[in-house]
């Protein structure tokens, strides 16, 4: 089967982030980037499904030139080939539009992506892809079972509840983090990845789809917590101070 995995490149988890001069996004200069963590689980699930059922895993990402590095890392983990849609926009619907356009040409049997991104966090790209491609979909998936012409999934609900859902293939699933164990790229994988294909798709502005219906006007640090008493400095002194507060002020110890 042919499985496509939509992956997003986001800042390294531990990066110190600053707002840019325009105050509308983060300052991206001098930042390191990596695969969005939920997408890493989607990729792992695709690789495991390929091991079980055979076929091909295609990774696709929309973004500026630097995303080719993240695609290359996915190839090193075992994906067969990559597609890079070169686009600068952050708008979820536009990104989904260009991804859908590229995926339509591939007609995969299954499309996977992470349930949300660590940067915007809208949690929508996969769901919108299903709509744009006219495919059935399901979200926050904990288990994927391929049956002839169908897929049966375990979907997470709130408060520890789950539900199995079956739908025809092709389908689009958004994958929950933690459903599998992520693999590392092997040296051999890294070597092989160098010769694997990453197809570059460039677009003119008109091909990016409709105007954004929501625009980030301002990005800012959340208002500082006024009530909290936060200590720093020498750990021993801070610990003593905290215990005193918990004992005599909060009266909880």
């Amino acid at each position: 089967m042919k499985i496509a995995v939509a992956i997003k490149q986001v800042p390294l988890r531990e990066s110190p982030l600053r707002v840019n001069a325009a105050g509308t996004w983060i300052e991206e200069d001098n930042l390191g980037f990596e695969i969005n963590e939920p997408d890493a689980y989607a990729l792992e699930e695709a690789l495991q499904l390929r091991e079980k059922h055979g076929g091909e895993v295609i990774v696709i990402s929309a973004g500026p030139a630097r995303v080719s590095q993240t695609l290359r890392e996915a190839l090193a983990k075992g994906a067969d080939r990559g597609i890079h849609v070169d686009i600068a926009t952050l708008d979820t619907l536009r990104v989904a539009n260009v991804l859908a356009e590229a995926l339509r040409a591939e007609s995969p049997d299954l499309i996977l992506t992470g349930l949300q991104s660590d940067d915007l966090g809208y949690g929508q790209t996969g769901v919108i892809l299903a709509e744009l491609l006219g495919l059935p979909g399901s979200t926050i998936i904990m288990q994927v079972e391929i049956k002839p012409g169908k897929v049966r999934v375990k979907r997470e609900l709130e408060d520890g509840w789950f539900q199995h859902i079956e739908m025809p293939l092709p389908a689009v699933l958004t994958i929950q983090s933690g459903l599998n164990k992520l693999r590392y790229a092997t040296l051999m994988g890294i070597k092989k990845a160098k010769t694997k294909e990453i197809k570059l798709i460039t677009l003119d502005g008109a091909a990016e789809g409709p105007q954004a219906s929501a625009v980030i006007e301002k990005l800012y640090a959340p208002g500082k917590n006024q009530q909290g008493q936060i200590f720093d400095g020498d750990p021993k002194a801070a610990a003593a101070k905290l215990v005193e507060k918990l004992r005599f002020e909060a009266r909880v110890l």
Partner: protein
Amino acid sequence: MSVLAIVEQRMAGEVFAAAQEFGSPVSAFSIDHPYTADAYTAAAEELIRKVNPTLVVFGHTYQTRDYAPKLAARFGRVLISDVIAGKPPVFVRQMFQGKFNADVRLAGDGPHFVSIQAGAWRAGSVPVETFSPSSATSRQVPEAPFREAARAVDLTAADIIVSVGRGIKEKENLPVVEALARALGAELAASRPICDAGWLPMDRQVGSSGQTVAPKVYFAVGISGAIQHLVGMKGAKTVVAINKDPNAPIFEVAHYGIIGDLFEVVPALVEEIKKTKSIPPP
């Protein structure tokens, strides 16, 4: 601005209260049909075309996440998901796992689509009408919801919880926080990544997909405080955060906190707590 609230049982009161703040007239409907993504997308589309609202409001539930983005895309819009404040035309939502807030402005004509975060608006009563879709075909075939084996650990009954997150770095470091839990007589809990990694069992997970707890004291150790975790522990009477990142969102909900390396702070804390154990409580 006319507002349509599409409600389910979960968060209905909050969604209606938010809708009233967002504009008028407000109508509120629940969809009278078993849930599937296809069925609800079709039903909500029919409802929106009938009511013709400028703004559609949902609760940011797992169900909403499953179909509302699809519905919005059908109208050429992006769902502004999980908003914590604001009203038309500007809503506030968290980005970068709560490290930043963003003001997001609606652009172009309605209908626009917004889902609100659980706990962000105070719930009121809801005069809800039910909407029966004229047809509801679905490619998804759902089975009955189920729970995995009964939880071995009931964190909801705990007075004190010591909860550990990514900051612990490795499974081998867990004894650091276990010592704190022991000193406090507390239950040990964790954020999702720790349970995903199998370092602690799933039934010790606090958050939207784990348990919702409200202890007297909640120690968040090496937990940055992504919203998925916060919704599970916001009800704690006293929140204590220990984190090396002064900008970690957990400090926004903390009553007390220490900025520092947990591997230095926690053992120091254990020593201090042991000292007080020999002194009678105030």
